[in-house]
């Protein structure tokens, strides 16, 4: 990112599923540009590997940057993978965000942040009492939910190392 003349905030170590581990299944409303319906992660994995992307709330700039970058990279075009987001933003906000920003991927809406909790990537937001969201993180899961690549932010803010993710996709 930008060179700053001060240290950005470090996050404590995250205890998340790592390469070779089996990631947890979950069911949440999966939102697209027209509607949402309960879907399980496993039902998405029936169609092949999934790149699970945890972002900040839709309104915060890291989510915008991340979705813009993922649109540019267009990994689904030349890799056997489905890109899927996870946010604590509600389904109404998320469907509008997908439509307004031209996001090409569905996003799980998880206002209570239970998925991030199951994945060990909870981020307590300073100054927003009672609100937690996922720390930015990325998990590449093969069809049986085995983690093939994992990254979780260690600083705040932090952005996925897109080239590393792409290398993991290329290796498949």
């Amino acid at each position, binding site marked *: 990112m930008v060179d700053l003349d001060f240290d950005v905030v470090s996050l404590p170590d995250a205890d998340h599923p790592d390469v070779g581990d089996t990631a947890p299944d979950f069911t949440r409303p999966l939102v697209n540009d027209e509607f*949402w*319906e309960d*879907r399980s992660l496993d039902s998405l994995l029936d169609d092949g590997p999934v790149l699970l992307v945890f972002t900040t709330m839709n309104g915060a700039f890291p989510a915008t940057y991340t979705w813009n970058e993922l649109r540019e990279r267009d990994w689904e075009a030349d890799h056997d993978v489905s890109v899927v987001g996870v946010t604590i933003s509600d389904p109404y906000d998320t*469907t509008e965000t997908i439509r307004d920003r031209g996001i090409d991927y569905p996003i799980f809406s998880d206002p209570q942040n239970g998925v991030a909790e199951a994945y060990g990537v909870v981020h307590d937001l300073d100054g927003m009492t009672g609100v937690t969201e996922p720390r930015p993180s990325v998990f590449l899961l093969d069809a049986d939910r085995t983690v093939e690549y994992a990254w979780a932010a260690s600083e705040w803010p932090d952005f996925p190392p897109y080239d590393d993710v792409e290398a993991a996709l290329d290796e498949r």
Partner: protein
Amino acid sequence: MTEDPQITLYRLQACPFCERVVRVLDEYDLEYRSRFVEPLHSRRNVIQRVSGSRTAPAIVDEATGVTMSESANIVEYLHATYGDERAATDGGESGGAA
């Protein structure tokens, strides 16, 4: 999870007509998938595509090939198709239990 039930219900949150249909689906223990749309009419294109109209609720029943709007019609259809008394299925208003 029941990922692929035969019945898909297009619904709005807190819409009484939609809840009326849900009550009958539950009454007959029918598995269904709920697809929620936004209240604004212009944001209901998915319903328009499947049913030809933007009104909610709408159901698609793949078991019978039926797609239907209007809660009264849907309730009548469910009673006729899945109810114990599968009488009077001529499609006329029967003023059923709903």
